[in-house]
């Protein structure tokens, strides 16, 4: 369970998110939507403890995360960012292996190597293994990074004796930016699968309300740094909410096999 309790984050006296209280249950895919400047990325970064709120607190499993150790936190919390650039040439495999850095000291162990191999298979990037990450396309990089991020909080069922009992946290900060439609769909399906694990709390930011409506179990709608609505997708993505927050007029079109489709005017 992940909870934000009366969280306010300010920069230069301006509140980017104000008095946000919202909770995220494990086993579900939570997506945050809202117009530009609504505070979506800020909220994700506060939840992931990259930014420290000036007021309020964030609790992981009922414990204030403010004092958690960096190394300990990194074993159970991973964040997929929009675009990850490497400053110097590194192999794709080394980038994925970074996800295991919190888990080993000097050299990666056999479990680390195994998880890296599995993740690279899962995201179809094994063929790039020895290629320079900098030469990959935006979409390829995004897959490599998703492999890295999942490797970070992956539990190898055969070898895990410890690490049980505590939730794992996955944050996705606009992960679809560089993906084409096919990869967007494949990506969202993979996220939904992973999010259905009962000990995983998954929170993501997306721009596309249709994707949010189709894949999210729960939607949080932000407007000007405050929670406008929260709940099941169908309850939050209503004409009234979309009109008042985004300033556009939505129409709901029935779509074959995929609920309704939103178009805007």
């Amino acid at each position, binding site marked *: 369970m992940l909870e934000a309790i009366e969280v306010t984050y300010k920069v230069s006296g301006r509140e980017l998110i104000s008095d946000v209280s919202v909770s995220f249950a494990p086993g579900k895919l939570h997506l945050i939507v809202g117009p530009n400047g609504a505070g979506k990325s800020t909220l994700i970064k506060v939840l992931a403890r990259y930014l420290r709120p000036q007021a309020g607190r964030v609790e992981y499993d009922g414990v204030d995360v403010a004092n958690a150790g960096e190394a300990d936190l*990194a074993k159970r919390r*991973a964040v997929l960012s929009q675009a*990850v*650039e490497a400053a110097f*040439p590194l192999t794709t495999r*080394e980038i994925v292996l970074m996800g295991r*850095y919190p888990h080993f000291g000097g050299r990666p162990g056999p479990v680390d190597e195994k998880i890296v191999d599995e993740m690279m298979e899962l995201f179809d990037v094994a063929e790039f293994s020895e290629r320079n990450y900098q030469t990959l396309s935006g979409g390829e990089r995004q897959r490599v990074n998703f492999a890295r991020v999942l490797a970070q909080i992956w539990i190898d069922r055969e070898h895990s004796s410890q690490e049980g009992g505590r939730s794992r946290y996955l944050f996705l900060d606009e992960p679809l930016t560089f993906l084409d439609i096919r990869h967007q769909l494949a990506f969202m399906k993979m996220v939904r699968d992973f999010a259905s694990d009962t000990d995983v709390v998954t929170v993501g930011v997306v721009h596309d309300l249709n994707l949010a409506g189709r894949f999210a179990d729960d939607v949080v709608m932000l407007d000007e740094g405050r929670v406008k609505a929260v709940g099941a997708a169908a309850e939050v993505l209503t004409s009234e909410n979309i009109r008042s927050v985004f300033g556009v007029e939505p129409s709901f079109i029935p779509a074959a096999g995929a609920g309704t489709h939103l178009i805007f005017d």
Partner: protein
Amino acid sequence: MTAAAIRYGAIDFSFADISAALSSLFPGQPEATLDQRIFLELRLPRTILCLFVGASLGVGGTLMQALFRNPIVEPGLVGTSSGAAFGSAFFFVLGGAFHFADAIWSLPLAACLGGVVSTYLVFLLARSREDGRASIVMLLLTGLAVNALFMSAIGFLSYLARDPQARSITFWSLGTLSGANWRSVCIVAVSTVVGTTVALRYSKQLNALMIGEEEAAYLGVNVNRLKWIILSVNVVIVAVATAFTGVISFVGLIVPHILRMMRGADNRFLIAASAVTGAILLSVADLVARLALRPAELPIGIVTSAVGVPVFLYLLRRRQYIF
């Protein structure tokens, strides 16, 4: 390479001379001749000092480039070298007036203090007022300004200086290994070995930093702490080396670049390899400095700059990197 560096110079030594010189150290052997004493007290310490200073500069360059995620950075850029040179210059011009000029440790201490002050000044000024974090861009620009400040301060000191002192300032700002003795070898050896060992412990974290500060933080790296540790290691190894040799530019720039072209940028390999490569490269430079105008010698900084500036400009012209 080291063998060549030992043999050739203003005086060439044969290997027979060298073994005779070395054996004169042992009891019961004939007293060392003048030439043999030149070898033992000048050439040999100089060659070894050169290895350690080269290693220091190579590691310093690798650390700074990893920290700033930018291949055109070198220890000079965050103010370390210019601060250390200012400390030395200050010592030479005004030290006598304060009665601390005689102590053996004064000069390296003055250089270290200068290096510490300038580097921490850069970091302090570059820190954001909002959240205390120092962004890379702010660090680079602040480093530029602080370097200019210390260089003009050195200029001011040399203006005040009477002739022999002024000459020694020129010497400091261009770098030379001619002051090598066994004491300086020991001090630089300690700082190089300790600094490199500490840096190696953080090579994994420096790798994580290469995909960005935010990503590194998510991977469990305490980014601000890592910055302080790496900067401190850099200050110590570079300022101690600078204290005995003056500012030797561009070694820290070239070494990591050569290695990255050869074998990629994994810091677990890069840090150790840059120590070795730096040592080799500076030995070549010192040999050139000694042989080019034999029996006079060039300041080594002229040699390293002659090679380093074209490399620097080449890196600047490549559009691959964002500054």
